[in-house]
């Protein structure tokens, strides 16, 4: 059996993974990255708007932290939020020193622009393709440092010990499948594993996310016993192109773009959704406003609204938003210099994720997570635009450093169950969630934990067996059919507007998907570049993650941030100032809660009404 051994194994090579690898390397660790894509193909490259960082006079980290906490609807944890705001400026400067081609002011300093929900124009950017430049700049640093990259190796399982209590478990490495050859190999991590696998956008069918964003890391950590936190909080971006879900950056509104409905009304103001901030209200507010307009019969073709930037003038558009003109042309056939762009809300970002502390550590020893797959928690119930990129930098770097040092030191935030956690006892689930057959059925109910001893070898053996099983099975169901059903029910029932019966319908549909997945078969018999197999494994991850989103959405009987419930139209701070956690316990999801940390370094963040 092939085992590749390194100090630190980083899974995923987007922004968070690259940053973690660089940080671990700077600590002197032997680092390797394992990714199902070549690094430059990662979805960080599609991020457009920018990186929030308090760099200038008149701004400071406390303002950034305050805006972030308010944006989170008081579900961010103060220690994580403040860490983000404190570390972001240095991260931006590091990127600049690594050569990132930021947009510049006349004096040569890095430009900043206004973004939704920010009290200061603190969003640094590189045109409307900030993520692309960030991804390439960090990959350049990985090349410079000679960090080993195993690209087009798909990590399918974590190697963890099987102690009864997840908090006693240890992660010693991962199992990977090489696309090119079909080889299954072990990757042993002497010090730590960092998951940086991105979001689960493919749980929805209208999403800005790449087809590769299938929640792999979240699903693997979940099955290994790490709780997923606040998964019901899914961001729907207000400006995506209707036919494809391609993202139109918030930078358009930041530069002065206007939203109007089919009657030509600037509805953010004229219908009172955000009398102060208008188009630059927080993303959840704008998405709901758009759909309310469409539902009231004021949408265009009953589907979308218009985003207009013509008045900005050709020069400003081509200077700061040129990429948007190309996207509108190529993917919607609209000339944005001359016509308004059709836009509607689309799934964009998962606020929740793998529970970590502010150092990126999970409750399993040796297992770290950072970026969209993780939840520290910075974004709480709603992420502000321009906060995802600093998050992946700040927590990617911290996770990398701590993984390199095997360092569990000094975190303010706790992980796992504590005296303060409380169980969910009244969940009205319509079907039994979790594995169809928790005792057997390796494609539908693996636990991710194997006996100690040769933990990694055992995991490799199990994974080989699982993959063989899928390749051997005859007359099965095509994964694409199952995936489409999950995506459709999530988009229909667990979208911007959520109501109890709809969420229950989604849980029933997910249950059906699980049952059908037991019969899934891979038609392509080849060992060479078998994407049929990869997509089949991904689909299992989508099912697990979608279920946690729906369970959280059903449990949370309030309206907070991105989570809107028809039956519960208020934020209920007395009852719900707490995080939702879902733990996979022997094949069954178990819901529980833990309090939010609102105690900052210099102040307590008192929940206030969130208006823009």
């Amino acid at each position: 059996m092939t085992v590749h051994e390194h100090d630190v194994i980083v899974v995923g090579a987007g922004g968070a993974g690259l940053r973690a690898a660089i940080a671990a390397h700077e600590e002197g660790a032997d680092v390797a990255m394992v990714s199902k894509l070549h690094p430059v193909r990662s979805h960080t490259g599609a991020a457009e708007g920018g990186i929030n960082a308090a760099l200038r006079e008149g701004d400071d980290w406390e303002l950034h932290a305050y805006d972030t906490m308010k944006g989170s609807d008081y579900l961010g944890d103060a220690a994580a939020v403040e860490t983000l705001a404190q570390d972001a400026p240095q991260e931006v400067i590091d990127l600049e020193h690594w050569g990132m081609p930021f947009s510049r002011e006349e004096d040569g300093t890095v430009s900043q622009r206004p973004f939704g929900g920010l009290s200061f124009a603190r969003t640094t950017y590189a045109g409307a393709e900030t993520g692309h430049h960030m991804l390439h700049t960090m990959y350049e640093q990985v090349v410079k440092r000679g960090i080993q990259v195993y690209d087009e190796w798909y990590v399918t399982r974590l190697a963890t010990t099987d102690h009864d209590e997840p908090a006693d478990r240890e992660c010693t490495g991962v199992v990977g499948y090489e696309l090119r050859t079909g080889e299954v190999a072990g990757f042993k991590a002497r010090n730590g594993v960092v998951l940086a696998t991105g979001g689960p956008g493919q749980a929805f069918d209208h999403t800005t996310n790449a087809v590769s964003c299938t929640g792999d890391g979240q699903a693997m950590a979940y099955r290994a016993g790490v709780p997923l936190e606040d998964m019901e909080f899914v961001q729907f971006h207000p400006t995506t192109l209707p036919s494809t879900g391609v993202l139109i950056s918030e930078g358009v509104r930041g530069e002065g773009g206007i939203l109007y409905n089919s009657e030509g009304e600037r509805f953010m103001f004229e219908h009172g959704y955000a009398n102060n901030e208008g188009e630059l209200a927080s993303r959840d507010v704008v998405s709901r406003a758009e759909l309310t307009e469409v539902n009231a019969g004021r949408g265009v073709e009953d589907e979308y609204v218009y985003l207009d930037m013509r008045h900005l003038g050709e020069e400003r558009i081509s200077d700061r938003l040129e990429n948007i003109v190309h996207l509108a042309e190529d993917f919607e056939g609209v000339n944005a210099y001359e016509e308004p762009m059709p836009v509607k809300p689309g799934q964009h970002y998962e606020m929740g994720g793998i529970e970590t502390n502010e150092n990126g550590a999970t409750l399993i020893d040796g297992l770290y997570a950072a970026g969209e797959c993780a939840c520290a928690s910075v974004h709480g119930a709603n992420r502000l635009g321009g906060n995802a990129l600093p998050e992946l930098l700040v927590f990617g770097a911290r996770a990398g450093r701590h993984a390199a040092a095997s360092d569990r030191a000094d975190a303010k935030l706790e992980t796992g169950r504590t005296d303060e956690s409380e169980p969910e006892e009244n969940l009205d689930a319509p079907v039994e969630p979790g594995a169809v057959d928790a005792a057997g059925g390796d494609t539908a109910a693996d636990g991710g934990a194997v006996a100690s001893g040769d933990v990694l070898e055992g995991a490799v053996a199990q994974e080989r067996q699982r993959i063989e099983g899928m390749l051997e099975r005859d007359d099965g169901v095509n994964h694409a059919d199952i995936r489409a059903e999950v995506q459709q029910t999530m988009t229909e029932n667990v979208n911007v507007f959520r109501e109890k019966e709809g969420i229950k319908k989604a849980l029933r549909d997910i249950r059906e998907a699980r049952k059908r997945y037991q019969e899934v078969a891979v038609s392509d018999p080849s060992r060479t570049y078998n994407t049929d197999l990869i997509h089949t494994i991904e689909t299992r991850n989508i099912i697990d993650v979608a279920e946690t989103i729906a369970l959280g959405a059903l449990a949370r009987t309030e309206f907070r941030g991105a989570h809107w419930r028809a039956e519960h139209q208020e934020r209920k701070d007395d009852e719900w100032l707490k995080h939702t956690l879902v733990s996979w316990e022997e094949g069954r999801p178990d819901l529980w809660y833990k309090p939010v940390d609102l105690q900052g370094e210099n102040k307590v963040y008192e929940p206030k009404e969130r208006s823009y």
Partner: protein
Amino acid sequence: MSTEQDEPTAETTTDADEAPAQTPGDRRREEKQARMQVTERERAEAAAAADETVQLKVFRFDPEVPEKEEPRFDDFHVPYVQGMTVLDALIYARDEFDSSLTFRHSCRQAVCGSDALFINGSQRLACKTQLSALDAPVRVEPLPHQDVVKDLVVDMEHFYDQMEAVEPYMQSEEFPEGELEEQRQSPENREKIKMSTRCIWCGACMSSCNIAAGDNEYLGPAAINKAYRFAMDEREEDDIKEHRMRIMEQEHGVWRCQTQFSCTEVCPKDIPLTEHIQELKREAVKSNLKFW
């Protein structure tokens, strides 16, 4: 296509034909293949009966599957909807007709650079190529001048090697002394390098280049453009620029370019690659490093 890939497969075929005791794997492969062909035909017939379909002729090859070890073209008749791209059609063909149809794709919005293909005889990104702009049947092939791994997937290693050969990372050593202080870069200089920084590493340019096809060591348009991106960036010091020019002037560097503009024509991000190469040639002359 590498001939090395064909040999082991040829042996496998012989084994399967001669040996009465098949391995379970062989049997599985054969049965699945047979089953897939029936379904494929049925679905193709159904699609053909629909109102409007687009015919794709897609290159197929798999060194490991007996039916596909000889390269061939498969026809897919995909129901056409307005705004459909070549990538949309390939995804439809894969999900509805033949799940073994293999191609790279990820972001669907022309930034990940995964799906550069040879479509109706030219290098394009499948995700931003509208079917309505193409003559039918639409011929879809892997990028020329690279080894085919399977179907539309090519080996990108050589491309990556060339990209990395030009030391594609910032090497400036003088940073401002102040804490949290950035290096200054004029908006004009940022504008100068802007187009060069748009490269998404799709490999379309390299595949279109006759020189690269004939000289495997030629750095190629993408790598030279990457070098341009740093050489023109005022944040790097002069001695580093000289170092970069020496790399550009090596035997397989800028002087190989014969300004045929094929790279510029196919670049999906509209990078003026040939101009950048020409400018580096002029810089080389100017810097008086007459190694050539």
